């Protein structure tokens, strides 16, 4: 395959074309929305769209790092459900303990993943599948199968319900900070470069003396922490810890990462394009909701699932074509 070749210039050009393709598609959809729907550009829509998708963007960022090493993290959805309950329980003490507690719980699950994958050498798919089941079971146990209401008197719900400035919610501000920090880590630090090198070839990275173990542990802790933060947003934004949420989130995150042009085999990836991928998938829903609202069509939630699969299919076809043309060019 072209993408395993280090000096594959045309393949890389194709890749970058796809990463920028995300922004072109995003821009096209936004222009379409602005022209077609009156309230699409409203502050309300922008705020609620960003607030809701902040959860998916943050887990996609963690997932991007994992996937760049050639791994996968299936546990993020139910870990987020688990940490939303932790945050809800901690909410009477205010925003900071709830935030820290939620993220710490997520990091703890990430640590379990890291232990299973690095020293015990389980395949990431299986290891994170197990923590996924354990997190779901754990979420049901600690919540007693009920949603856990947050303390409305404390400052906790401000995070998920109030705006930082203009239409921009606090959650997206945190996500933006996280994205910039992760971008810098990926592009400018030895750790970030090691993450990419591992995805290219783990064996070669180890032989070159890169700190492979440290980088692999880091990505799973990071992914767990990101899922933990998503859980905090969930509890704060919806006013309750939600043991039954999180189903399929891992697949949304994987899809966002792939739409952003990151290869599942690792070795290549972009933080901005991943954010773009998550926004693109979220926007598909937003546009469908507006189309439903106009009354010209009436799409049930079931149709939306079908369309979501269709969009993923279209993106995959596009990606496969680009890979093929890059291959042929060699």
């Amino acid at each position, binding site marked *: *395959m072209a993408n395993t070749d280090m000096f594959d210039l045309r393949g890389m050009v194709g890749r970058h074309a796809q990463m920028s393709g995300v922004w072109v598609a995003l821009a096209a959809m936004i222009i379409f929305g602005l022209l077609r729907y009156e309230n699409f550009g409203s502050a309300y829509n922008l705020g609620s769209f960003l607030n809701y998708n902040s959860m998916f963007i943050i887990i996609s960022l963690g997932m991007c790092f994992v996937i760049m090493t050639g791994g*996968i993290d299936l546990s993020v959805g139910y870990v987020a459900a688990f940490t939303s309950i932790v945050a809800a329980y901690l909410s009477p003490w205010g925003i900071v303990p709830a935030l820290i507690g939620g993220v710490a719980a997520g990091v703890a699950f990430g640590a379990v993943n890291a232990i*299973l994958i690095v020293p*015990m*050498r*389980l*395949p990431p*798919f*299986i*290891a994170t*599948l*197990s*923590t*996924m*089941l*354990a997190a*779901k*079971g*754990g*979420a*049901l*146990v600690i919540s007693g*199968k009920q949603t856990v209401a947050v303390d409305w008197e404390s400052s906790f719900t401000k995070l998920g319900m109030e705006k930082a400035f203009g239409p921009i919610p606090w959650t997206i501000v945190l996500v933006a900070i996280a994205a910039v920090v992760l971008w810098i880590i990926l592009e400018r630090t030895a750790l970030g470069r090691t993450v990419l090198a591992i995805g290219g070839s783990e064996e070669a990275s180890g032989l070159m003396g890169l700190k492979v173990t440290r980088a692999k542990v880091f990505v799973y802790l990071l992914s767990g922490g990101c899922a933990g933060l998503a859980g905090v947003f969930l509890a704060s934004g919806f006013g309750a810890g939600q043991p039954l949420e999180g189903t*399929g989130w891992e*697949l949304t995150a*994987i*899809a966002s990462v*792939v739409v952003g042009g990151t290869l*599942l*085999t690792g070795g290549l990836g972009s933080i901005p394009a991943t954010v773009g991928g998550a926004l693109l998938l979220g926007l598909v829903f937003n546009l469908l909701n507006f189309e439903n609202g106009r009354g010209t069509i009436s799409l*049930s939630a*079931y*149709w*939306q*699932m*079908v*369309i*979501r*699969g*269709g969009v*993923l*299919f279209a993106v*995959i*076809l596009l*990606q*496969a074509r680009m*890979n*093929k043309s890059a291959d042929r060019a060699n």
Partner: protein
Amino acid sequence: MSDEGMTVENRVRGKREPMAMISRHGGLAALAVLLIFNLLVTPNFLQAQTLAVNVSQVATIALVAVGMTLVIATGGIDLSVGAVMALSGAMAPIIFTSEFAQAYPVPGLAAAFLLPLVAAFCCGMFNGALVALLGVQPIIATLIFFISGRGVAQVLTNGNLQTFTNPSFSYIGTARLLGIPVQGWLVALIAAVIWYVIRYTASGRYLLAVGGNERAARMAGVPVTRVKIMAYATCSVLSGLSGLIVVAINSASDAARIGNLMELDAIAAAVVGGAVLSGGRAPIWGAILGAVVIQLVKYTLLANGVADEIALIAKAGIIVAAVYAQQMRKG
């Protein structure tokens, strides 16, 4: 556990290292522990009814696990199995309650069995084509139907629960033969056929070759593309059949629930049974053993009043233990 597809090296080492013995027979050991525990603790375990209940549940997991084993043998994975179950399970009642089936019961019933399986086959061909022809990673390729397959099923039924009384259709879910549910016999028959194909036919050896080393297989003239597509197609058809059985057992079809999280059970069963995610092994009887273990864990916990959520955690522990034992063997 069957040993098809094991490399010579493993076979030799299996005789030498005690750890390898445990890992090769980890599934059997788990089964033995579960049986002994149940005999001692669970009330009324040694009853025909218990056997029938468990066999009827195992059959649905085992069918999918056998299909999943074939896909995993090529080095792939199929996340869409649960959604395919929902699709075929939603189609069958629509067909046999239609006017055509009311007017002509026999062709109607045949269509109710065949059309859902054809639909499942098409899903599998689609998955396989994406993986084998376009080179899409299996987890992403099968994600498409994972997301949209259940959506299609719910669009077909408007999301409604379909209940029905149709003794001839329910036969595959409720009938008994020699005291054992008929779907148990069906699974045994299908597993035997697939085991034979893998063990003794060229297609079967091709399957293992593709998973063992795809590049070498291609150079040796193995029709890699065709083999992969057939693996996904078979997996989907078996999932579709499993969906029909679930619907027949319940005499009801709820597209939102049929096969929900089945991909996890099937992958777990295949792995407990000795499948290796990197491919090259297809332990069919192992998959059945894995399905039995998964079901017995569920049953044991349920029969002893342990809550569902604890059962999930137990399942996670079992998967980790089984795969860790495999890793030990690889050294």
